[in-house]
């Protein structure tokens, strides 16, 4: 069993996580920020799967399965909130949404 595949997975997931972080920091549209969060969760999953490759009990893959479930829940709730916010403020620009109640 060789671990020679591991650095490529680590490199990919580190860069994916950084790109997701940059999306969250840089963008002003709520939906693109949500895409950045999904990218970060995906990067974590890549690491879990890569480290569980040689593990016969597949703990990492099962954990990654639960991460996928929670990420889907998070996306659904976040989009529902985004739709309500858009209905209220008529914008999805994060710089203009600065009041809790109007």
């Amino acid at each position, binding site marked *: *069993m060789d*671990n020679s*595949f*591991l650095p*490529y*997975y680590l*490199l*990919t997931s*580190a*860069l*994916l996580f*950084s*790109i997701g*972080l*940059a*999306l969250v*920091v*840089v*963008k*002003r*549209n709520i*939906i*693109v920020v*949500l*895409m950045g969060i*999904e*990218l970060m969760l*995906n990067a974590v*999953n*890549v690491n879990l*799967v*890569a480290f569980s*490759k*040689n593990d*016969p009990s*597949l703990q990492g*893959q*099962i954990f*990654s399965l*639960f991460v*996928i*479930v*929670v*990420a*889907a*829940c998070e*996306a*659904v*709730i976040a*989009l*529902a*909130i*985004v*739709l309500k916010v*858009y209905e209220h403020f*008529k*914008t*999805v*620009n994060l*710089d203009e949404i600065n009041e809790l109640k109007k």
Partner: protein
Amino acid sequence: MVLTLASALVVLLTKNVLYAAFSLLGTFLGVSALYVLAGADFLAVAQILVYVGGVLVLLIFGVMLTNQQGNKSRGRNDITTESSNRVLGVFVMLGFSATLLYTFGRARFLTIQDNLFEAVEPTSTTQTIGVELMTNYVLPFEVSGILLMAVLIGAAYLSTKTKN
């Protein structure tokens, strides 16, 4: 790997939300291909089903429902922040990735000796995942079921029109 990173970069660099959503499709498919290469076939299928089939469609619906015509007429870029903040954000990203890569470079992973475990034959992981879910992980499984139901009710409640 190259496909994954390239389309993630397109998500970062494009100025069109819909282009970002479509290149996110490429990223998710690339991650799923990485899962297949790591021998996680069940997770690859679950990734395609959940992300490409569910989350991405939801995101595209969100893009279309919150699209407004006034963006272009105002004549300024509404997607990214001002250039000063953008430079700061890119610095954050570069610093974070440099830290991660430095850490991964410094780490010394144990090489697994040849006779330590019996060789994992490359069979389907679906049976193992199913048995483990029903025995060792039955509590998180049920909790995720309850979470999904709560999310369903919450989303239905949030997306109803409020009567004034």
